[in-house]
């Protein structure tokens, strides 16, 4: 972990001057991209408090995985999802006003052996974790799967105090060859690319902090440029005024 990138890639992470992550626990109210292993490994240090795994606090989470089984329960559908790191069950309560249990089961059976994107709140009951208010959506563009898992790595490393190299403005999400062979993009184009690349996995919006880290400019400048782009209709706001999205 000390030299994450091993000189293999431009960009990447370094522990140089890393802050003491133990003294700065991270609290997230936005969606945290995770792997299923992180969900299964998470512990709840304080009863009814947030879950925590490897110094990352988990509240609202998102993950991607393949639906492996769908089972009908008396008033719910149990969807079993695996992502290669582990398996978890998502329970979808059947709303009889919007369809029969059979229709709900059929809907999720259509997702069998396909990737889905799941969001929800990680909660516990009787010492067992579950995902509350889960949303299960099919993945149509599988770059979302790659982007999601890379985002999970990114969040995990930030929580360990490992930050992207500031001297190199490339990110995990930009291919090395593409970045060297492609024409030089302007700051605005690079910001829009970051927002476009992350929007599928950050449905509540891409925060300026992440854009700032990837593009390599100050957060205030990112906010100023994004505000201009929103005003011109080239970006749109996320779930709050400080996050951005782009199809």
């Amino acid at each position, binding site marked *: 972990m000390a030299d994450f990138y091993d000189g293999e890639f431009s960009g990447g992470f370094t522990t140089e001057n890393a802050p003491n992550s133990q003294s700065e626990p991270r609290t997230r109210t936005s969606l945290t991209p995770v792997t299923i*292993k992180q969900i299964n490994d998470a512990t709840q240090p304080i009863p009814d408090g947030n879950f925590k795994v490897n110094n990352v606090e988990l509240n609202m989470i998102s993950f991607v995985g393949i639906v492996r089984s769908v089972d009908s329960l008396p008033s719910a559908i149990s969807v079993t999802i695996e992502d*290669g*790191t582990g398996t978890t069950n998502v329970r979808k309560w059947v709303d009889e006003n919007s369809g029969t249990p059979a229709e709900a089961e059929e809907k999720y059976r259509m997702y069998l052996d396909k990737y889905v994107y799941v969001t929800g709140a990680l909660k516990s009951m009787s010492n067992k974790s579950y995902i509350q208010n889960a949303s299960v959506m099919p993945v149509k563009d599988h770059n979302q799967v790659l982007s999601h898992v890379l985002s999970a790595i990114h969040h995990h490393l930030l929580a360990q105090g490992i930050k992207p190299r500031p001297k190199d403005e490339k990110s995990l999400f930009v291919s090395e060859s593409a970045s060297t062979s492609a024409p030089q993009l302007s700051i605005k184009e690079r910001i829009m690319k970051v927002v476009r690349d992350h929007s599928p996995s950050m449905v509540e919006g891409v925060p300026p902090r992440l854009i700032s880290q990837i593009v390599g400019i100050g957060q205030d400048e990112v906010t100023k440029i994004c505000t201009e782009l929103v005003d011109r209709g080239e970006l749109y706001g996320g779930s709050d005024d400080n996050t951005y999205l782009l199809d």
Partner: protein
Amino acid sequence: MDATKVRINASLVEKYQGKLVRLIGKCQSFDPINKIATLDSNGEVRLEFFDEVNLAVGKIYEITGKVSSNEQKVHAQAVTELSDNTNLEIADKLVSYSQKVPELFIES
């Protein structure tokens, strides 16, 4: 499907002999009679299927399976077709990065 499946590509097949793996690549050839295929996953990977499967050459798939313990091939257990625009270069980088943060991917 509970066991961890490490994300690999062709360059890591030998390292994971006998292990469960997950790899993304483009189908180069498919022989439905002999149930074998080759996948370009940053290099060629030979696949062997036990069940009936239908692959299309040129399509991108994610394969989960077990690397043979004595041959350079993967016994495929499940196949998921991915969208045609899936960026295989990014998929390779994901393999590299996932190797470096096993705490997110691999049961200790």
